[in-house]
């Protein structure tokens, strides 16, 4: 079955064509992303109105690009999977309306996909993983642990109580005057820094060992920068120390969840899964505990439409379809 995936929940518009015969086993024929970083960089963050306006311009060309590089025509597509939430509602609507229009005119079935389910299943694009496994979804808007029991069966074990991990990276980068997006800048800067230079506190949520909290670290960095030590500390050391604290605060609940669940595979996914220190340390700690960490390659960690096509594929393969009246939901729950 040939599936067209469409994603526009935030600032990237993406389209992908995947081929699948059995749920979870997909061949990526094409995956295209129209990235807006250059547009939003000037503002130091995403401007929703600009994002949705740009999606209007780029959504059809990015779909055409995906179809062309897959070597197929719209008529060859047998099903459409599209993100319907969570995300910025103006952005979501562009991809969803476009997908509904295509479904309407071609008569092909359409399914609405939860963006988080896309991230949870993204590791399956390149790896064979048996159920159940543990997924750590960590990005600019989300930080949560899920027990993945089967397609469509996800149990949330823990989540952030305040900020997402990626948000902490962005905001600390801003505090340090480093620019946007913060995750990559801090990761790169940290490579030349001493991660033991500043001992930032590792927050944990009392009575909830699988939950996260990242708002305190932001305050700790702000306080440190304001102190007498602030102006003389090397930026690379502060960045590396901060990153190490965030990584530790992600690793500990994740390991606790893996043990609780008794699974040997931990899937690390979402934009922050691109962080090199997180990959390195989680893999090392998991290996010591007799477990393995599986992470998608970079292009499938960040927002993409291949994961949306994959997450829609098991339903399309079963012959399911959603009504054309499906709506975008900014706060869609999994």
């Amino acid at each position, binding site marked *: 079955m040939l599936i067209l995936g469409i994603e526009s929940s935030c600032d990237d518009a993406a389209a992908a064509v995947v081929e699948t015969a059995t749920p979870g086993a997909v061949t990526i024929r094409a995956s295209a992303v129209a990235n807006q970083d250059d547009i939003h960089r000037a503002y130091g*963050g995403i*401007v*929703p*109105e600009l994002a949705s306006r740009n999606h209007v311009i780029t959504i059809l060309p990015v779909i055409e690009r995906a179809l062309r590089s897959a070597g197929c025509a719209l008529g060859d597509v047998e099903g459409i999977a599209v993100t319907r939430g969570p995300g910025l509602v103006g952005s979501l609507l562009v991809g969803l309306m476009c997908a509904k229009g295509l479904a309407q005119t071609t008569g092909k079935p359409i399914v609405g996909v939860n963006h988080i389910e896309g991230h949870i299943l993204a590791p399956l694009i390149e790896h064979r993983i048996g159920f159940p496994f543990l997924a750590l979804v960590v990005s600019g808007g*989300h930080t949560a642990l899920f027990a993945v029991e089967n397609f469509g069966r996800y149990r949330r074990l823990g989540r952030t*109580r*305040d900020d*997402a991990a990626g*948000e902490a990276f962005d905001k600390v980068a801003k505090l340090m005057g480093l620019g946007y997006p913060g995750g990559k800048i801090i990761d790169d800067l940290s490579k030349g820094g001493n991660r033991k230079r500043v001992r930032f506190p590792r927050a944990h949520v009392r009575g909830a060992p699988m939950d996260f909290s990242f708002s305190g670290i932001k305050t700790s960095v*702000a306080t440190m920068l304001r102190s007498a030590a602030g102006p003389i500390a090397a930026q690379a050391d502060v960045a590396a120390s901060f990153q190490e604290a965030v990584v530790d605060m992600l690793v500990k609940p994740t390991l606790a969840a893996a043990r609780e669940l008794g699974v040997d595979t931990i899937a690390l996914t979402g934009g922050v899964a691109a962080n090199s220190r997180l990959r390195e340390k989680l893999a090392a700690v998991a290996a010591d505990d007799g477990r393995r960490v599986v992470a998608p390659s970079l292009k499938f960690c960040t927002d993409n439409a291949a994961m949306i096509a994959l997450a829609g594929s098991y339903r399309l393969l079963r012959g399911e379809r959603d009504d054309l009246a499906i709506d975008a939901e900014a706060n869609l729950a999994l």
Partner: protein
Amino acid sequence: MVRTPTSETQDSVAVFVIESNSPHETKNWGRRLASVLEGGELLGLIGDLGAGKTCFIKGLARGLSLREEDILSPTFTMIQEHHGRVALYHIDLYRLDEAGLDDLGLREYLFSEGVAAVEWFERLREADELDYLSVNISYSGANRRRIEFRAARERGTLLLNRLRNRFA
């Protein structure tokens, strides 16, 4: 409800300042503020990253009989709705350089029967035209914060006076 823009001359500014010695105290001030809310109020949160805006709103939520742990940073989604005794609309303008009332459908939340708590309120272009209570949290030590409540119009001033009379 007196929160629509008016053209009359601005009333005198009312200010109430307290010191908080911990995140716990900051949260408690949120709870106290909640105890004088009736619904339909606009609260403008102002303060640097890490000052404690979301912390204050967690206390506010608790005071409104909502679950504190459901209050997450709305930076990514920009608007989070919570429905309890009165609705709480938790809005975050951080990712916007500046915002107008017509962006993000803000009007719908700011002129509702619920309580609208807006972080990075200073980025709202039309702020001066609205009747609100601002909560400005600033660093005065590692764990110390100066919290300044300020209001210039009728509804905001009423809230501020209630808060001061009850808790000063």
